[in-house]
């Protein structure tokens, strides 16, 4: 019996787990080894210890409400040691795009009309959520006002910081555009979660947490939105569609609702299901 073609190809770092957990029994593809890690919930057991499957895999979509049959995925744990999938080598005139060989090979095998969905990177803004430096704030075009009595960090340094985060995604997707002809969609990471200190899983970032261990909500949202805005503008320039977080998963102030969170910096399968529905709509999938 011939397998149906996948509805899309997924290339993802850790944020792809929420989507995979929502739509497929993909964990059958690998066996979690070692002692359970208390820093993570069940969704991320095996993710950080090298148990995760390293090759592309096909998985059937088991969520009956979705107009999807199967996807093919390549999920990349940081334990793979690949680093950025593509980067701009600026040593020569004009710069040269350098692409990780395995990424090139996988893209070549995907070349065609089936859309590629990227859930690459995206956890970089989470690095700023901990209050591990003196208090500060910065100005933002979308979120008015600054906290009183703290230094205001110059736009220059905020943009420098965000550039490094954005570049990691941007050049990977530039590589996709250069190497293959597939339609391309990038899914933005979930926003910072409400009440991160109440999360049962601290993802190895803290031993225990209180509200004071995290930046104020407004500042976390500022970092996240600034990152998203910059990324959206870059990706628009290479004709890459971008999916924003599902509005129903977010509070009025732009935080991820607790019921959609998995740990302190990731979303869960409930969130992943909302993303899957967005994708079905964006990709024009229908039964």
């Amino acid at each position, binding site marked *: 019996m011939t397998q149906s073609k996948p509805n899309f190809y997924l290339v993802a770092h850790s944020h792809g787990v929420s989507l995979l957990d929502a739509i497929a029994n993909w964990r059958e593809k690998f066996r979690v080894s070692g002692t359970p890690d208390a820093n993570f919930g069940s969704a991320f057991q095996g993710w950080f210890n090298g148990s995760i499957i390293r090759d592309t895999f096909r998985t059937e979509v088991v969520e009956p409400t979705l107009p999807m049959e199967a996807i093919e995925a390549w999920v990349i744990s940081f334990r793979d040691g690949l680093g950025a999938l593509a980067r701009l080598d600026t040593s020569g005139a004009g710069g040269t795009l350098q692409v990780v060989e395995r990424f090139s090979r996988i893209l070549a095998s995907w070349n065609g009309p089936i859309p590629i969905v990227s859930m690459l990177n995206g956890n970089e803004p989470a690095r700023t959520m901990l209050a591990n*430096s*003196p208090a500060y704030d910065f100005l933002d075009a979308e979120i008015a006002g600054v906290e009183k009595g703290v*230094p205001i960090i*110059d736009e*220059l340094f905020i943009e420098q910081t965000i550039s490094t985060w954005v570049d990691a995604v941007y050049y990977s997707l530039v590589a996709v555009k250069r190497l293959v002809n597939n339609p391309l969609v990038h899914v933005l990471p979930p926003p910072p979660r409400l009440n991160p200190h109440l999360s049962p899983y601290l993802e190895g970032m803290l031993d225990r947490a209180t509200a004071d261990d995290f930046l104020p909500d407004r500042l976390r949202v500022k970092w996240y939105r600034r990152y998203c805005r910059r990324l959206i503008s870059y990706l628009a320039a290479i004709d890459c569609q971008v999916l924003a977080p599902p509005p129903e998963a977010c509070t009025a102030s732009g935080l991820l609702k607790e019921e959609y969170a998995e740990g302190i910096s990731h979303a869960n399968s409930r969130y992943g299901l909302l993303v899957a529905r967005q994708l079905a709509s964006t990709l024009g999938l229908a039964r």
Partner: protein
Amino acid sequence: MNPYSNLPRQNFWNASARAQDALEVDFDSGRKFVFSASDQFATAGSCFAQHFATQLAERGGRVLVAEARHPLVSESSEHGYGLFSARYGNIYTVRQLLELLEQAFGLRETVYDMVARPDGRWVDMLRPRAVPMGFASLEHARADRDYHLHAVRQMVEKLDVFVFTLGLTEVWINVEHGYCYPVVPGSVAGQFIENRHCFHNFSFAETVADLERVIGIVASNNAMARILFTVSPVGLVATAEQRNVMVSTTASKSILRSAVDAVVRSHSSCDYFPSFEIITSPYSRGKYWAEGLRDVNQSGINTVMDVFFRSRLPDFQAAAGDAAALTPAHQAHQEELEAALTEECDEMFLDPELRSRQ
């Protein structure tokens, strides 16, 4: 017997003039109080005050840092942190200090006098060189001024010793809104507008009145604070008076020195440290002037600080060094420091010749 018969050596000119070195002269013999190693110093004032803060920190003194570089701010950028306890830049006149404190403690409206530079960055005209890289936007400049005033307030509330170096009496005032600038608009940044920017030279009476108000604000917000005044020996770069700049320098320094003398006599929490006399007295035979005869050279700075540490910080006596004993490497470092600090003097921008070298 007469009233002079039992006075100590330092009260007599000949004894002082015959002294082997500045330490033996005991310039600071009239001191009211000394400080301890745990005292936190905040410093402000003219260019000379920058040397004071730097050396104080280098020799192990505790300089209160109310406004520090945040880790997100690149160390190599021209952020302006570290010259003084907060990023107020050079404060040349007592009125400038008074207006800063009044704003910090809500005694007057915050002054937002910001201008755009040709490179698109923004400058706070009340501290035009305090943040050399400028601000990203008008909104940022205003927000940073709010934070700066907050930092100044915190500084006054936390300090043990406030060292203020008086520099000038000549000033340019925004007569529309009633505040003074550290340097005339149009020199470092902004535009000079006749009838809005007017020259004023503070009198002795005005300077004393301003000092009294400064002392009052500090005391009412920090009852334990002690204030140490010094007068900068550095001459004026230029005078707006119709007379020679050296004549104006003498007039300015005389007014400042007299005003400090007047207020120190009436406030037990205030004292004077004679860095001005260490540099300018005949005893020094002019050897502490840098090339150009206006700035103080590194040997002069070292001597001032040697006297300061020996007289005021006995806990640190062992650390007091002799400028003559500097190693070549240390000397080179000191010269670099001297050059760097000279560059931080806003006043340099008044002289077209010096300005062209910047």
